[in-house]
């Protein structure tokens, strides 16, 4: 069982967390025309990189989304950071 670090609650077992998405995925402006491929990419495409990855996770018990950097090969957690503009 992996141990993830919530920037608000500290180290917790992985079962308390939920994967939200890869970092840097921006919702297209749907008021403008959105190309079907761009929309499909937004919905379904994942980079699935090997090595260090930056992802958004939710800590279910405090409900905060945060950025976690981890290594997808060694499973090592490299860092985690709040997504708040002003970190509490």
């Amino acid at each position, binding site marked *: *069982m*992996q*141990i993830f670090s919530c920037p608000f609650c500290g180290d917790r077992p*992985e079962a308390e967390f*939920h994967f*939200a998405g890869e970092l840097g995925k921006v*919702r*297209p*402006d*749907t*008021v403008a025309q*959105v190309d*079907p491929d761009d*929309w499909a990419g*937004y*919905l379904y495409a994942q980079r699935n990189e090997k090595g260090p990855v930056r992802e*958004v996770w*939710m800590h*279910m018990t405090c*409900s*905060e*989304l945060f950025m976690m950097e981890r290594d997808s090969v*060694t*499973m*090592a*957690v490299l860092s985690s950071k709040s*997504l*708040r*503009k002003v970190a509490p």
Partner: protein
Amino acid sequence: MTSHRTARVALIDRSKPLDFTFDGTPYQGVEGDTIASALLANGVRVMGRSFKYHRPRGPWGAWVDDPNAIMSVTLDGRAFPNCPATTTPLAEGMQVRAVNAFPSAQFDLKGGLDLFHRWLGAGFYYKTFMWPDWHLFEPLIRKMAGLGDVSRDVLEGYASDQVYDHCDVLVIGGGAAGLAAAHTAAVAGQDVVLVDDHPALGGGLHQWATIEGAAPADWIAAQVAKIEAAGGRILRATTAFGVYDHSMVALAENGPFGTAPRLHRMRAGRIILATGALDRPITFANNDRPGIMSIDAAGEYLARYGVLVGRRIAMVSNNSNADAAEALLSEAGADVRRIDPLLGPLCAVGGKRLKGLVQNGTRTAADTILASGGMTPLVHLWRHAGGKLEWCADRQAFLPAAGPEGMCAIGAANGTFDLTRALEEARAAGAGEQALRAATTYRLSPLWPEPGSKGRQWIDFQHDVTLKDIELAARENYVSVEHLKRYTTLGMASDQGKTSNMAGLAAMAAIQGKPLPEVGTTTFRPPFVPVPLALYHGGHGGQLWNPLKRLALEPQHRAAGAALGEYGGWLRPGWYGAGDAAEIIRHEVLMARASAGIMDASPLGKIEVMGPDAEAFVNFVYYNTIKTLKPGHIRYGFMLTEGGVIMDDGVIARLDENRFVISCSSSHVDAVRSHLEAWRQDGNDPDRIFIHDVTQHWATVTIAGPKARDIVCGLGLDLDLSAEAFAHMTLRDAEFDGKPLRIARVSFTGDTSFELSIRRTGAEALWDAVIALGKDTGAGPIGIEALSILRAEKGYIMIGKDTDGETMPHDLGFAIPRLKKKVPFLGDRSLHSEKANATGRKSLVGLAVPDGAAALPTGAHVVEGKRSAGYVTSSYDSPTLDRPIALGLVENGTARMGESVEIWHLGATRQATICAPCFFDPDGGRLHAE
């Protein structure tokens, strides 16, 4: 008797005899015995039959490496399948039976299968049972295959404790090296945990005469005393069976036989592997006969259990470890003859009773053959953790190389077979020092299977894989070790190749003419030894896994005789009263239509969204426009996923400018809450929107029916309840019994309806008052089953029942926001995809059956020729209309009103007519009634 108990000092208590039976025959062992040692002490050596050929087998090993002696054990009426005889401690009254043998291991009816071995090689099943259909043969083969039979009885109380633990240094293995390392680390002030899978510590040390000038038992006792005095913890009979992500080590701590092991999830600053090494078999003709054992096993049986495994022993070894064993066994009274396996091919003679060993035409009489083809370090945990291996030509073994962070291997697990050097290495590791592997005095001559040689030579004992099977696999191009394993089932038995893998790899290397390390190893996966599934499961079941949510009014429902059941995670009344449930439900529906139904609707979601950006936020997460909703008003709407699919439906009420209450489906509250929470923080300023799930803070009593208003009037609230003053889809605040009361006029039945929400502590008074008032008008409580029918009569949907993973709002007739809503909302773009615009989408319809026909089965398909064009989602006998009604999702359904369709269910075909989904009061006159 060939094998027998000697007077040698051992780790058993001879003063405590234990009676047990094996295949129905009574025997006696002593406290401290395993099943295998007790049987050997009684001269029993045939302890099982092989998996495929039903060849008689005796134990090869004395501990976890034994592939042969597997037992079904019954104790105190509780049956446990597949207990390894070599590791299961003997207990008084055990009834032991060999698996895979009938009526006994000694005389097995299927023993004759061995005569057909020529036709039963690797891949036999794949090649033979293809025509006409594997499924014809499968039941018979399944019956013949497998090991012990699992009892159908539930083992009451068989539950594994789950412990989360941590320490500075975890030492795995309580032999000489492990003890020395743990001692050094503990006295240095480290928090040390030492685990060993035997009930008694010491590993192979008991076979030695002395260690550092002391008797092994004294030396071990001294180490234990010092470790414990320094605060170290020692877990005996505890197997480290796997290393998982982030170096979590899983430990199974065994209690008395018949109890579930305790699972420790251990996290350690450092992990020291002192797991030792195993003797590996030598591959020669008939090397699977009972009475052929590892040299180390013979030493262990003698040292731990006082059992001498044979009287005339032929000892076959290619390495220097045999010298000490020869001395040990000779001293105990055995007649030991050494045979050099390098001098020529070997062949064991004898069946259930071994007669001797033939080499180069010379027969050496022997009742027992002890073999060692070299030591194989136990590197399983090292590989679980991602450590690398390197091939050592001197030792002819894979040794730990580049290690996982925080883990090191010492002693025999590291290839350090010399005791003195192992102790040095252990003390260095205990002190946290990096030590280089020392040279070894251990000597061996390479000795591996010889492809093409004569006789049936076993590689995998338990799964009956012979050298010829490996050769066959190679001929058929299954040369990769992973393919070889799966084609021949080599190493797939319950011992997971502990004895067979090295010989199998070496055979494949020799066939291909490659060096052994180039062939590589198969993947090492946890668990190291078989563990019961209950170990992982622990107490995670029933209420501890998914606790039921309980209603504040549960005592009132129980008093009213409610049939309580789980609905969407809540314990709710299905109906009220005992007797014919269908009849009761019918009466509840008729009562609700004639007077009023009173229902506990507390599980209905109540998620408050507050803050200056709340309006924009709810307008974004809803398909419908919420921005125009006025305070005090309520609107029905959908929440979609980004894929455009309906995630939930329900009403949203606006309390004031910056405050909304989302009333989502009872069973979706948690999902909706986290969905909203994720979007609150994604692309929004979370300091300007706040989401608060208050579902469990409020109890809700719903009164629905023509007399609903009369009942609510009877509460004497300071509020004008007339239809003009308090219209459908509006919200008012009031007070009841001195507590705030929130009243919503929404309806899920199609009748005039009031939803009264009060804080949980006020629920009882409100419920009692409403029920009392209801009595005067013929109204009473109704359960969730009646509500399901009432809503279906009106064509009101339930998400997940009347919608599926493709349903979009326009499939339900809610098309306007898709075309008109100008601001972004969740799922908007997906509603205009090719798929969303496609013709032939399934839409919600009603399905009527001919007069006198029975209700359609839910799940029945609407068929066109041989394909499904939709299905029935809800179906009931409507008490109100006195005929069956059904809802369904049907391709192009909305455009096919009045069309007759064929309905198929489990082979039977029926007719139905597509109609509008609303069967009752389609004009809505009752909803707005005075």
